[in-house]
């Protein structure tokens, strides 16, 4: 496995942004009510993180370290604005259901964290691998949380309008707590504990 593959694989499990680094919990809590929202958020994070990692890795040579944070923020804010405009124009339903959390990607700790910790020190190619790995890790975490929350909270599973199944008892009496933010905290905490206990994910 080359350096590219290693940087990619690292984001999936070893430094999974939600379960191991515990970054970006705000969108993870707010968005993971349904699988649709989780995928929409992942798309937004993918565009912004990939773009910001490429740009920041490209300009890392001549950015003075004293002004790096305002420059990172300007770059990220630009990309978020672009994503905002694109979502508003082409995915209006997704734009509406993501709501305030789409512009809030600008202060998502995953993106600034990767810019600061990785892209500002590594070449472009590795930064791309890092961005992809972290995004896929983020997506896996969001899918896991939203899958459990959607089934327990609504009693049925449907993705982009396709209804897969509706559970017999849970469909009529869903456990509403799992749709609310504290339900998300519960699920994240339990999953995190499970992964720590089984040794699948160990902190860095």
């Amino acid at each position, binding site marked *: 496995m080359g350096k590219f593959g290693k940087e990619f694989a690292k984001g999936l499990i070893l430094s999974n942004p939600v379960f191991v680094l515990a970054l970006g919990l705000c969108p993870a809590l707010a968005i993971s009510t349904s699988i649709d929202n989780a995928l929409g958020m992942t798309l937004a994070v993918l565009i912004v993180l990939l773009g910001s990692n490429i740009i920041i890795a490209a*300009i890392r040579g*001549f*950015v*003075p370290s*004293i*002004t790096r944070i*305002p*420059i990172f923020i*300007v*770059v990220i*804010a*630009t990309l978020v*604005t*672009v994503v905002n*405009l*694109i979502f*508003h*124009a082409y995915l*209006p*339903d997704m734009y509406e259901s993501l709501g305030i959390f789409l512009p809030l990607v600008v202060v998502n700790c995953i993106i600034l964290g990767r810019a600061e910790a990785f892209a500002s020190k590594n070449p472009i190619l590795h930064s791309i691998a890092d961005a992809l790995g972290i995004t896929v890790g983020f997506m896996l975490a969001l899918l896991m949380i939203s899958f459990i929350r959607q089934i327990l909270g609504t009693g049925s599973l449907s993705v982009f309008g396709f209804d897969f199944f509706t559970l017999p008892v849970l469909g009529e009496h869903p456990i509403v707590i799992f749709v609310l933010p504290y339900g998300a905290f519960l699920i994240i905490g339990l999953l995190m504990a499970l992964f720590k206990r089984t040794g699948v994910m160990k902190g860095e």
Partner: protein
Amino acid sequence: MIIGILTAIGLACGLIIYMVHIKVPQKVKGLEKTEEINSILPGMNCGACGYPGCFGYAQALAKDPDLVVKTPCSQVLQDAEKLEQLEKALGITLDASEMSKKALVHCDGNSEVICSYSGVQTCKAAAQLLRGYKKCPYACLGLDDCVKICPQGAISIDPEKNVAIVDPEECTGCGLCVVECPQDLIELVSPGTKIAFLCSYKPLKNIPGRERCDFGCIHCRKCFKACEDEAIEWNKELAIPEFNQEKCTLCHKCIEVCEQNTLADFTKIGKGKEAELVSV
């Protein structure tokens, strides 16, 4: 040097946003209808329809046009031109006279004052203290809560009877006073209502030491018996008459026979108020 780099990156980023902004279509698909409806609505965001502002209402209407019948915008109903535009935008026909409801205060006033109240001069505060200072625990307290909330200035306090009176001509049926009244006296009724029942005393919720005032319904059923058109039905649970608008011919027999003067001709309520105010 640092300032130069920051400026250059800032300018470059601004340029990127500008390029995307001019490339992306400005008229968003699926939102065209919402924006068309929004341009018809008054835009004062009063919230009386129950939605977060006019844009929220427009979004709901774009999804479900039939919603306008259930929760109509009272401002649009007043304006025939805007109503026509809204009908065109939604593709349905509306009957404005049937939809624009009017507020009616279910109290004739005059209830005896049984103690002196000198607290905060709002109905809400007074109602907290054992449901007010009048003999009837359901009486209109006449401390201006509804008068203050009414955006149209359609409610006034009758100084003689000390009761709120709604002028149906000014009332737009927004329903703000219905929520405001701590005694739950105000109800939105259809403008075609013929007989108004001016009492809300309910024998079921009897409070010890408090009783009906000398001016309220005594549940005698005289109106029920007097009606020749079978337009009055007796609600046994609440012991009050209920009126059928379609059967009622406005013969005034029930009003004449009522010894307590609890019934009134709804079509004359506003005008009667004006006449009284002039005489005072």
